[in-house]
């Protein structure tokens, strides 16, 4: 076996949220945020999950991290199934996976010094136990994310958005994780900062062999960081492919529309755009058959009655669509 070790394998993951309670507090409906998805991430690999608001991409992230208990399906971290572990059984496993959120202002405690923020995960998991070891550990991490050595003595408000995101990355790396979930980690940053952080993540991944799950709505950023892309629409993966296969020839009509809707920074490039009409339907009551059929320019009778499953379209390229079959 030469293939790199699988860090995380997800099989048939579902996450339904109860909504609209009746007078007795019983839910009258369920919001199907994630409705049966499967994927795996290997060591040193980035899998990007892209899609628009409400497609369930963040719910996937939360379920993997067990910040939410999934409704159904299995999540294997290393070899351990974690989907139904108790909080206390889960705790030692949390060292293996960390998270970086979108808002670098809201995700750092304003009353803690940077040193304590970065040291906390390492102390919790017993990686650094005495003062000298902690100081050395923090210095190593600051250097890794290219922050000045004296940053440790300062507070979060003294840093800009890009620098705070570096602090979040240092904190995520503090307990030597195998997997980092980046939930819109660069979306709130300006163009020049975004480039710095994307490059930093790619470099750290190469150096440390991390597996990354990069959740984003910005397909252009994804292209520079990812090895594989999974496109989600209304709780389902509609296409999953390697970077070059996906960006050179997306096969699902939704992926095509998504890519063509990105405004190109070139006034001469007038695109034959696939402009989708209407809005995303409600995940409480999704359309029958293919969930994209209400907005799909190619929809036909079969799309209404039969739900398309992911099938191999080419090596490393799977798509869930009845077209070209």
């Amino acid at each position: 076996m030469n293939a790199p070790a699988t860090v995380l394998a997800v099989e048939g993951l579902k996450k339904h949220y109860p909504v609209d309670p009746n007078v007795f507090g019983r839910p009258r409906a369920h919001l199907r945020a994630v409705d049966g998805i499967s994927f795996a991430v290997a060591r040193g690999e980035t899998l990007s999950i892209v899609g628009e608001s409400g497609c369930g991409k963040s719910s996937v992230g939360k379920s993997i991290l067990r910040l939410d208990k999934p409704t159904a399906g299995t999540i294997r971290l290393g070899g351990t199934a974690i989907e139904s572990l108790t909080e206390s059984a889960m705790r030692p496993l949390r060292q293996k996976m960390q998270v970086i959120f979108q808002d670098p202002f809201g995700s750092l405690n304003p009353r803690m010094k940077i040193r304590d923020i970065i040291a906390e995960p390492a102390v919790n998991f017993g990686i650094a136990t005495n003062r000298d070891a902690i100081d050395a550990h923090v210095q190593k991490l600051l250097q890794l994310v290219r922050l000045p050595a004296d940053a440790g003595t300062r507070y979060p408000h003294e840093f800009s958005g890009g620098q705070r995101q570096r602090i979040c990355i240092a904190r995520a790396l503090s307990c030597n994780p195998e997997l980092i979930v980046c939930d819109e980690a660069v979306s709130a940053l300006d163009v020049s900062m975004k480039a710095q952080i994307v490059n930093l993540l790619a470099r750290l991944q190469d150096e440390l062999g991390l597996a990354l799950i990069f959740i984003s709505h910005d397909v252009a950023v994804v292209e520079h960081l990812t090895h594989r892309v999974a496109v989600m629409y209304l709780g389902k993966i509609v296409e999953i492919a390697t970077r070059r296969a996906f960006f050179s020839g997306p096969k699902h009509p939704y992926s095509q529309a998504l890519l063509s809707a990105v405004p190109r920074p070139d006034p001469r490039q007038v695109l034959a755009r696939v402009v989708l009409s209407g809005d995303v339907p409600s995940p409480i009551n999704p359309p029958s058959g293919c969930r994209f059929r209400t907005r799909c320019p190619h929809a036909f009778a079969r799309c209404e009655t039969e739900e398309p499953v992911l099938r191999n379209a080419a090596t490393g390229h799977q798509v869930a669509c009845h077209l070209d079959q």
Partner: protein
Amino acid sequence: MTLLQVEDLQVHFRTPTGVVRSVNGLSFAVDRGETVAIVGESGCGKSVTSMSVLRLIPTPPGRMAGKILFEGRNLLALPEDDMKAIRGNEISMIFQEPMTSLNPVLTVGQQICETLRLHQGMDANQANARALVMLQLVGITAPERRLQSYPHQLSGGMCQRVMIAIALACDPKLLIADEPTTALDVTVQAQILDLMRDLQKRLGTAIVLVTHDLGVVAQTAQRVIVMYAGRKVEEASVDALFAHPMHPYTQGLMDAIPKLGSSLGSESRTQLAEIDGAVPDLRKPLVGCAFASRCSRSTVLCTQTMPMTQEKASGHWVACHHVESEKTP
């Protein structure tokens, strides 16, 4: 013909930690029916500029100086009552967050009619009829029903369409759009940008588009103003700016944008170009060029003298000591 002329605009804010100089001597003009984009990163003063045109900056703590001439009248010297007659009527604005810009306890119809009755003196029936026309214009299906809807019953894209309907209801001469599509998904963004382009063609409204997204600029604007740390660093037609950016900051920005399809040539992932460092602290007085500390071409001159905005090629203005003039005399 010039519709809006901003001359040497200064907007400063007094804060507990010092005076923040958000806009420092900004001048630009907008012609009738033209789309001008103001582009830059967070804190460059682009939103503050757009707010000052409508005098929406609270004073104090804000302080404004300079001139904002709208059809020859200086808006900064106008009494508040005259300003009220201009806001929403001759100049209107749409904001980034369509969900929070609408009043949650009023129906869409009531909110469109409010501007019409206030500014155009219409009665309820006239206003209702016009509101219906506006909803049709912005491409909302079943407009009769939507007039009775509350904002929470609409999606983000629909809310932004309603905002545009309100903004255009009085047939303004100038529309200021502050990040109008930033909070929307790309497929919805494409719809709204198409709508704005189409409406401008039909109604001839001048648009000032404030955005951080160079992709949106390229697809929408005719002229572009690039701002950095409260100053204009470059101004050109959209074609000239994208084909041939002159200011080192603009060049850095263009290189740093992730472009779709740009990595397809290589087996491995490609690095993005970076601009080192971060924006300067606007609480400290800026001597010389604001970009000097991050610029590869900076010299002693840059740290001491502020570069003037000069026309380096026909219609292409740049504020940099190290850009050679390409203008034929």
